């Protein structure tokens, strides 16, 4: 199991939950599981969200492994100037 923490506007899309317990071994699997359980979040996952796994931020990295027991945060993607 992994612990998924949502902040900001994404929280509304999962019914207001701030934390979820899910089974997912990669970021891609996490997106699939989330999208199936909460269809409202699927378009946002496709447009792009960043994923922090135990504090380290990944962007557009669908195959990045998520260790068992990890704390995962979904957050807006970051770019720069």
């Amino acid at each position, binding site marked *: 199991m992994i612990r998924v923490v949502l*902040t900001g506007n994404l929280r509304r899309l999962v019914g207001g939950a701030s934390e979820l317990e899910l089974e997912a071994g990669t970021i891609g699997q996490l997106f699939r599981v989330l999208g199936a359980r909460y269809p409202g979040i699927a378009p946002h996952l496709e447009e792009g969200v960043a994923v922090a796994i135990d504090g380290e931020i990944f962007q557009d*990295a669908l195959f990045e492994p998520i260790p068992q027991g990890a704390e995962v945060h979904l957050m*807006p993607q*970051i770019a720069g*100037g």
Partner: protein
Amino acid sequence: MANDKKLKWIGTRPPRPDGVDKVTGRAKFGADLYVPNMLIGKILRSPHAHARIISIDTSKAEALPGVKAVLTRDDFEDRSSEFVPAGEMMVNYRDIVRNVMAREKALYEGHAVAAVAATSNAIAKRALKLIEVDYEPLPHVIDAVEAMKPDAPLLHDDMFTVGVEPVPTKPSNVAKRIEFAIGDIEAGFAAADVIIEREFDTKPVHQAYIEPHACVGSVSEDGQAELWLTTQGHYVARAHCARLLDMDISKIRVTASEIGGGFGGKTVVYLEPVALGLSRKACQPVKMVMSRDEVFRASGPTSGAHMKIKVGATKDGKITAAEAELIYQAGAFAGSPVQPGAMCAFAPYDLENVKVVGWDVVSNRSKVAAYRAPGAPISEYAAECVIDELAKRLGLDPIEFRLANAAKEGTRTAYGPKFGPIGLVESLEQAKAHPHYQAALGPNQGRGVASGFWFNIGGETCASLIVNEDGTVALTIGTPDIGGSRASLCMMAAEELGIDLDKVRPIIADTASLGYTFLTGGSRATFSSGMATIDAARDVVKQLCERAAKIWEISADAVEWEDGFAKPAGANAGDFKPMSLAEIAAIAGKTGGPVVGHAQINAQGAGPSFGTHLVDVEVDRETGRVTVLRYTVLQDAGKAVHPSYVEGQFQGGAVQGIGWALNEEYIYGANGKLENAGFLDYRIPVASDVPMIDTVIIEVPNPRHPYGVRGIGETPIIPPMAAIANAIENALGIRFTQLPMSPPRVLKAIGEMAAAAE
């Protein structure tokens, strides 16, 4: 990490490979390309801040001898709402096509309405005057707070605020509401002994790159296109042009010129689709160059903002709660950098209770573009002013107060995750110990301090290393070099290969010569292209070892690479004379063909960057002029590959921040027209305005980069505005909450203080 071993090139200060070209005028910038049969393209721009476009009649312009093509909204297909990443934000092609060429309405003064291509500049200008546009002027709104009011002129009748419940049934100028929160904000304020609450205003400021936007577009009769332009990302420009012109990506070959500054403002397209569209009609190359006036009116500055900041702390100096409401101007289309602004506002602090609400608001001015750490300088300016005021109220040293609350490894951010290794505490401690912080101040002088945070990013990146037959190496990368990245990347290649730096020659490849590479932005070029260069170099080393193994007729596992030579890995591998890279390269044709290393990655693990700035100012009480006397930047670079260019980024960011703090602002008339669209009236700092900026490079290695590199280009623009505001407060006892702190504003405040004292 490789930085555990002794490094030969990383950390040294060799001359940049593009240096001679730059100082001799050989370097070719956006406007420097001339090709046969080239036409000159010009754009007709809206004189109105907001107007419905009833009709556009181009017949007289088209009839003018020498005019080869005319373009209007009818030449661009409308696009559905589709978000893609570009620069600092997700962009919507429905909006991009409207920003490149106005459609139903002109949404700001300077909005492109039509374009011509002609055989000369004079004919193109004359043709613009012959285009008849029937406008229905509409009420306009510039200020974001005004634009939020229910009776404000509406820019888009299909804009319904995202992120609010219930979903609005009426359109408004508010594109989006965002919120980040942790802990219990009410309980946090209840636990505070002191609470400071202030409102702040900042004005739109331009990136003010010295080189205006410029390009040459050429489309042949068979639909093959070439584009030459000044840009931070030619692959991104290619994608935009292909989408807007409905062309295959493979048919557009884009070459990035040398770039005379971008700072985020050259991550979007303005002229480029127009030049290609005109060329497609004329079947001749079309060159387009913006005037400075056009740069100011029609290319993106960053947001102006209105902010409320509230921070509470205990009397012994522990921050208990921090709250912010941020209202950012997006310009004519949705997409201000309020989101990263909200995420960064209190990032330098270890806080249990935080709430930040942000509003993205459209108004009748040019669409914002990225500007160094987009959004962060605005929100962190306001937050750092309140932090400073809180320290003063508590009678604490401002650095000690920051240290007592500073984010460190393991600190949870307001936007969710915990920080890894970061260098904020080091920057504060070194600031406190710096001679600058101890130096005496004179009358009317004050000292300010502020810290700043930016995320930094990685992203899609390619690199190739070609080993030439004489043992020299060609490094091919795809990130345009703005701040000296070519030098740093060559140094990393030389370090990995164990060869002299002057054997490595870099080029920025065109889009047909190297795989997709995201733009130079987000402080990513040296980090991401560096990782790709290192991977490509390691690919080369692997191949060189395999060649040596074949020559020696031993296993490749029995060969190792050391200081530029293939060597038997141990006594059991055999007794062979080490072969240099040049020796292996000389016979590569006989041992399997050329040696070329490649890397194509999506770089992850960009370490965040923190810095602290110290500034001394002197205020002239008779004129209100603020003079920056002394300035010191202390920032974590992870590992400074080329310290001179790291220092250059620190200094450049500080100087841009000084301009933002003291002088720069977009000034609009009551008619919604920009009144200072030139460097005489929009005053950026010049050399005589600033002291030599002192720098301290702190190195807390980024564990995800082979040499520990962090991005460093954006963070330096974040602290200056608050540091200078805090210094002025220290000098005068007046807390300014509006930018810029220009002479008239400072003089007025001094007068008001004197009047109040009487």
